[in-house]
């Protein structure tokens, strides 16, 4: 009798232990995109471990993701137009649709109800119900008199269910208001030659499109968009012949640090620093090669930079007090992406051709841990769910 009671207690205890391992939060989770195999690893940034793997996500060769506001689901946009909703807790693919022929990424609305894709083919943006992935709005990027559709780049969410994006072929910034998805309202602003990506400042006010076809960036104040686009850092190339760009830089709100925006120059091996109040140039910092990601540590004290092929084995760290390069690292072969933990004590760096992710301590710049991943590219953490422009 006594013995069976003990057995019962033991069984109860093990059940409780099981329940404990099942219940968990998602605020310290994230995904690592495995670009060549169409899969993602699900990672835990507290324990620095891989906790799951989800495959069958199509062509992830240029993939990005946004997160539901409860930080449970990742919406992953694939190059092939696939949009996959992945449950991070159960490590399962909840739903997958093919929404375009060629896609480049997406965004999520302020209220978390709309997931919006930006597409090259057919050019435009599409909005989906975040719950069901049902199509709720289709906004083609038509321009000119012949009904051509531009490739869409730089999609970012703005407050008020609005989305800002740029048209590579048409040289425009557009803002689409999806507060009534059945009747989208779009305004267009001439921006300059060949915008290649865009960002919105963390407060959701300024939208900046980087321009490939000219020296300068296009700035739109979305609090007073009727004032139109203003060029910032115009003529930063000083008329010099641009160097070849073997990979387009990427822009996001991560470039804002210490009251300044740290922006990749195009065709120059420089990071350009601009004041976010006056939008005047503060400094320019010579770096190793063509910058791709110029990302501020969340406290803004440092900015980490990676580079285009063939110099993609390097990462440099900029000290934002002195605006100088304070460290040069070699995290591995083909460094494609970096992601800071929510408060920035660590940064995870993908080294595609080493098939590894390396986790760096941002205080010592030393490797804390390293783990295997198949051709890793984007690393994206759920804390993005709480940030405008991510």
């Amino acid at each position, binding site marked *: 009798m006594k013995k069976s009671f003990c057995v019962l207690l033991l069984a109860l205890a093990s059940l409780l232990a099981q329940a404990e391992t099942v219940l968990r939060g998602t605020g310290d989770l994230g995904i690592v995109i495995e*670009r*060549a195999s169409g899969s993602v690893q699900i990672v835990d940034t507290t324990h620095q471990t891989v906790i799951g793997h989800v495959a069958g996500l199509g*062509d992830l*060769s*240029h993939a990005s993701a946004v997160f539901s506001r409860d930080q449970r689901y990742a919406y992953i946009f694939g*190059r*092939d137009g696939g949009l996959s909703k992945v449950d991070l807790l159960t490590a399962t693919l909840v739903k997958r649709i093919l929404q375009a022929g*060629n896609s*480049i990424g997406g965004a999520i609305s302020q209220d978390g109800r709309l997931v919006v894709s930006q597409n*090259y*083919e057919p050019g435009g943006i599409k909005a989906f119900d975040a719950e069901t992935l049902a199509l709720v709005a289709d906004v083609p990027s038509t321009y000119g008199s012949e009904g051509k559709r531009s*490739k869409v*780049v730089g999609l970012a969410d703005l407050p008020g269910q609005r989305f800002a994006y740029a048209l*590579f072929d048409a040289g425009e910034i557009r803002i689409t208001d999806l507060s009534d998805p059945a009747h989208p309202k779009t305004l267009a602003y001439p921006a300059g030659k*060949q915008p*290649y990506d865009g960002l919105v400042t963390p407060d959701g006010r300024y939208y900046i499109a980087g321009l*490939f*076809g000219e020296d300068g960036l296009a700035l739109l104040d979305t609090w007073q968009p009727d004032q139109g686009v203003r060029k910032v850092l115009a003529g930063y190339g000083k008329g010099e012949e641009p160097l*070849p*760009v*073997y*990979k*387009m830089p990427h822009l996001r709100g991560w470039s804002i640090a210490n009251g300044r925006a740290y922006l990749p120059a195009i065709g120059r091996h420089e990071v350009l620093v601009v004041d976010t109040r006056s939008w005047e140039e503060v400094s320019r910092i010579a770096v190793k090669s063509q910058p791709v990601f110029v990302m501020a540590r969340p406290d803004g004290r440092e900015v980490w930079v990676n580079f285009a*092929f*063939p110099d993609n084995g390097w990462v440099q760290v900029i000290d934002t007090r002195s605006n100088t390069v304070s460290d040069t690292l070699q995290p591995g072969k*083909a460094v494609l992406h970096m992601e800071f933990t929510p408060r920035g004590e660590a940064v995870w760096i993908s080294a*595609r*051709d080493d098939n590894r992710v390396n986790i760096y301590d941002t205080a010592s710049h030393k490797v804390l841990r390293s783990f295997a991943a198949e*051709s890793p590219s984007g690393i994206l953490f759920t804390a993005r769910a709480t940030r405008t422009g991510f």
Partner: protein
Amino acid sequence: MQRGLGLVMSLMAAVPALAQSSQPTLERQQTLIHMVRQDCGSCHGLTLKGGLGPALTADALHERSMDALAATIINGRPGTPMPPFQGLLNEADVQWIARQLLAGFPEIR
């Protein structure tokens, strides 16, 4: 066959340095396959079905000549994001890549 020979001969006339260069080693070929799929793929797609840059599948390129492709790789395309690969690739590399693209580019092993 005849047409292929004509193409090679016209290429030899147009770009003698290219036609005379030798085939990359098997190891170099693997490096080139990796580079085209992974790095050119950042604009043209890992599947080469296109992105910011145009599709580079055999179907998409069937009206292009090998010397035009080789010239684009070497010199880039001014006014577009296509950069020149002169200095990163030698003539044998470029010729081999152009030939593989026209035939349908190999997968990474």
